[in-house]
Each structure stands twice: as C-alpha cells, then as structure tokens.
C-alpha cells in the first residue's frame, strides 16, 4: 500500500475530525482522524428494536430480582435451605442498642466488611439491614410484593422478546453471524492478543463479528438467556410439579436459585465488558449502528481486499 499521508479533511469534519478525543469517541482507540470511512448497514431495524427492548427489560429484571433477593439475602445448594451454611449471605451486625452498625458479605468460609453497600446500607438517612442497597433495587425500599410483580411482568417481555429474536435469527440467517464456526475457534488465541492490543478488525473483516464477539453474543443469547429463564421457572413450585426434570437438572430449587443469581451477575459482567468494548472501538460509531443501523468501517488499505 502507498504510504502517503492522507490530508485531514477539515472541510468535512471540521474541528472534531482533528481532535484526538473526538476521534476516540467516534471511532475508538487507534482510530486515525480524518481517515476516509465507508458506511455500511450493520443492524436491521428488528435487531435494533430487540436490542434496546432487551437492555431496558434486563435492567428491570436485575433490579427487581435484587429486591426479591433482599427478602432472604442468602443462597444455598440442593433442594432446600441449609440455614446454618449458606453459600453466600449478606447480613448486618447490630450494636447492643439494636442499631445496625455494619454490613457483612459471607461467601463460603470468607467474610468481608461491605458496610454501606452489601448487608447494610443507608435508606432515608438511616443505616438499615438490607442485602443490596436501595439504589440497586426496584422498588428502592423493601417491598417484596412489588418487586415480584415487576419481575414477573418483565419476565414475560424478556421471554417474548427473546423468542421473537431467536425466530428472526434462524429465519433470516442472522444466526450465521452469531454462531462461532471452526475457523473462528482456531482464530481465537490470535484474536485475544489483537483485542488486548486494542487492534480491532478493519475493512471487510469489520463487517462481520469476530470470534470473540460471536462467542460472547452467542453464549449470552443462547446459553445465558435460556438458563436464566429455566432456573427462574424451576423456582416455581407449580412448574416443578409439572416438569420434575427442571429441579433435577439444576440439582434442586435452591441450587436453581443460586444459578439464577449467578446468571443475573453474568449479565452484569457481560454488560461491563460490552460497554468497555463499545467505548474502545468507537462509542459513537457503535451507538449509531444500533440506533440507525449505519456503521462506518475503516478501509483496510486494500491490502487483502
């Protein structure tokens, strides 16, 4: 490829194009300001709507779930609760006057002081015993009945949205964009290194999901999604009566609850990495592609075109 300095295009992008920060916000780490870019239609309207619905629904599910969790902030393994040996518990310590003084997170044999966040946190100015703090739960104050009502309404939306997406993905071949193939898996080590160097695919390669993206999206959509639904249903005594394989599959209702909890935080973990990657690979370019569908890719210099 010819190594000619491409002149910046001040007429086109003005001040923004020459600012490094703007370049980062538009196209992410390593983006060259002023580089000519090719627009590309990335996400169909269906995918965009499903994506944003899902984002909102998941937020409600998580926060109402944490409200539910707070009614008995402890997790167990097996069919029932072994109250003296929870796998995890969030509890408060009180002084002699009965005031809550600290919050403790117990995981297996370990205890951590998590005052202010887990076990004990402030509500209307007072330190109170509660698993997750008010800012993380829906509703904010302790209100199990309403937390359940939110959770079970949005559970329907979550499932309907998910099923429609799955049908779409299979019917329109979108599943091929998402499912990792053998080539992707072979490429995985190389891609991990590239990602760590913040080198993102360019040109035609940027039109497709790379192996890491596929693996992440596929796992979240087709493994984590069904798992959170199935473990959620396993906590229903009526479902267990009709489908005994459910509690069998998860080794009991309390284990299902624990796995459900782990799933919820796996979504949170995915979210954190997802946002990080969006920012690093160009906040605005990504955001726009999920709003209008338009994504701009850098030319690969034609080297492997």
């Amino acid at each position, binding site marked *: 490829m010819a190594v000619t300095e491409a002149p910046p295009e001040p007429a086109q992008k003005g001040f923004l194009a020459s600012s490094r920060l703007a370049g980062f916000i538009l196209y992410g780490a390593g983006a060259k300001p002023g580089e000519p870019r090719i627009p590309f239609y990335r996400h169909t309207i269906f995918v965009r709507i499903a994506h944003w619905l899902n984002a909102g629904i998941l937020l409600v599910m998580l926060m109402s779930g944490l409200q539910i969790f707070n009614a008995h902030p402890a997790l167990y393994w097996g069919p029932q609760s072994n109250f003296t040996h929870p796998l995890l518990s969030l509890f408060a310590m009180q002084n002699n006057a009965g005031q809550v003084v600290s919050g403790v997170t117990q995981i297996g044999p370990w205890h951590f002081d998590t005052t202010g966040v887990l076990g004990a946190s402030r509500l209307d100015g007072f330190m109170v015993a509660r698993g997750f703090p008010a800012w993380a739960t829906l509703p904010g104050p302790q209100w199990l009945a*309403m937390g359940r009502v939110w959770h079970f309404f949005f559970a329907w939306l979550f499932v309907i949205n998910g099923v429609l997406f799955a049908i779409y993905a299979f019917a329109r071949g979108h599943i091929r964009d998402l499912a990792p193939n053998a080539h992707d898996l072979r490429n995985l080590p190389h891609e991990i290194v590239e990602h760590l160097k913040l080198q993102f695919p360019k040109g035609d390669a940027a039109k497709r999901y790379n192996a890491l993206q596929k693996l992440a999206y596929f796992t979240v959509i087709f493994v984590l999604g069904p798992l959170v639904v199935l473990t959620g249903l396993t906590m229903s*005594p009526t479902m267990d009566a009709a489908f005994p394989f459910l509690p069998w599959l998860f080794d009991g209702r309390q284990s299902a609850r624990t796995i459900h909890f782990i799933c919820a935080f796996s979504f949170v973990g995915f979210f954190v990495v997802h946002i990080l990657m969006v920012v690093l690979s160009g906040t605005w370019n990504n955001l726009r592609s999920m709003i209008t569908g338009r994504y701009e890719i850098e030319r690969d210099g034609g080297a492997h075109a």
Partner: protein
Amino acid sequence: MPDRRNLLRGAAAAAGALTLSACKPVSQTQWVQNVLYTAEGLTRRAQRLFVGRHALAREYSKADIAPVFRANGTINPPTDDYQQHVKEGFAYWEVKVDGLVEHPLTLTLADLRKLPSRTQITRHDCVEGWSCIGEWTGVPLRTVLAMAKPKTNARYCVFHCADPMSDTDNDGVADDDFYYESLDLLEATHPQTLLAYDLNGKPLPVPYGAPVRLRAERQLGYKMAKYVERLELLESFAHIGGGKGGYWEDQGYNWYAGI
C-alpha cells in the same frame, strides 16, 4: 387480547417512567400497578395450560427432612382464645365448613384424625426465597369437601384462621384482622392439598399452625394458612377482608402463588 396489549403498553410506559424518576413513586402509581398486575392472570393461565390438574409435587424421602424446619409468620397467636386451646391440648378445637355447601360441617380434631389420612414429604417454598422439606400428615381437603358437597356455584374455598395479624395500638390486645387465605377448587381438590395435623410424625407444634393448617404443595408458603378454624365456600372472595383473597394478597402479593 387485552393481556398482550397491556403487556406492550406497560413495557413502554414502565421503561419510560423508570428512566424519568425514582422507582418508588413509579411502583406506587396506580395505573402502573394495574398494568403490571395483569401478568399474574397470564402466568396463572399459562401454568394451568401446561400443568396437569393433578400433577403432583415431588415427594422426598425421610433422609431429606430438614433438621430444623423454619417457622415463619405468626408463630404463637396471642389471643386468650387460642392460648386457652393450647392449654386444653386443642381438645375442643373445631373446624367449620360452611358457605356454599349442601352439608355444613363442624369437625373436631378427633373427627379429622378419624378420616382417611395422607402423609407426604414435600418441599415448602417461602415467597421470601428459602425452602424446607418436611413430612406432613392430614386429611386430603377434597375428602372434607366431598362430605360438605360444595354447591355448583362455589368457586373458592376461603380459610379463616385464629391468628390476628396486627395490634395497631400496641396494647397487647390484637386487632381482629385474622389471617385468611383462599384457593380455587382446582387447587383445593388437588390430591396433595391437606388439612394437616402432624409434622414429622408428631402433632403440629404451635409455630407451624397447630392444630390444623393447610398444605397446598404447588403453591408458595403464604397460601398455606395456619391455625385453620373455618372453611367457607364462596363464589367470590371480594367481600372477605380486603377483597383480594388473602391477608398477604391484601398487602399486594399475587393471589396466584404458583411461582
């Protein structure tokens, strides 16, 4: 298709409302609540569609019985009346069956114990999230209902209990808001639905609802009324208590407690 339309409307509205303001006021908004509560009917119908009328809850083995079964809610009704029954060993406890029945009944504890019994080791799931396994013995409710012969317009069985739920002025004298619950006849006539009088082979201790409590194994714990004194068959529970079919339902919990 009101359910689906409400679902969509609710989703849009709730998502908007959520981003606009703090969550507590949203949860207290009447129309938001109205929309969100529609999911209960959907869940009930969906579960009833997929779950056989008489699909049985799993029964466990003796080895699975919890060493300590958690007692929750009322653990010792404070009324003089009840305490008198405790002193008398519940010898004069009676369970009445009335309302929309051909043959109103009054059964003593001894009468109940004479009826054919069922023993089952089942998992109790509390709405709070925990579970305990215990062995329950009692009379299948459907046996009692068969004796009373519900009239054709009876749809619900309401359970009236001896435990008052509050003492607003804190004077040690309880208010008269006694616990109550209700099941529809489908759940009430399920083979594992019992008027239970024994826990783990011994007469039901006071914290667990002595001398008679309900077991409805496909439902959450709050459905399983303790200290049961009266069964009332009704076409609708709108005129009982707060009108929502149970003490906790009146506080906002779903009447359908299959999940």
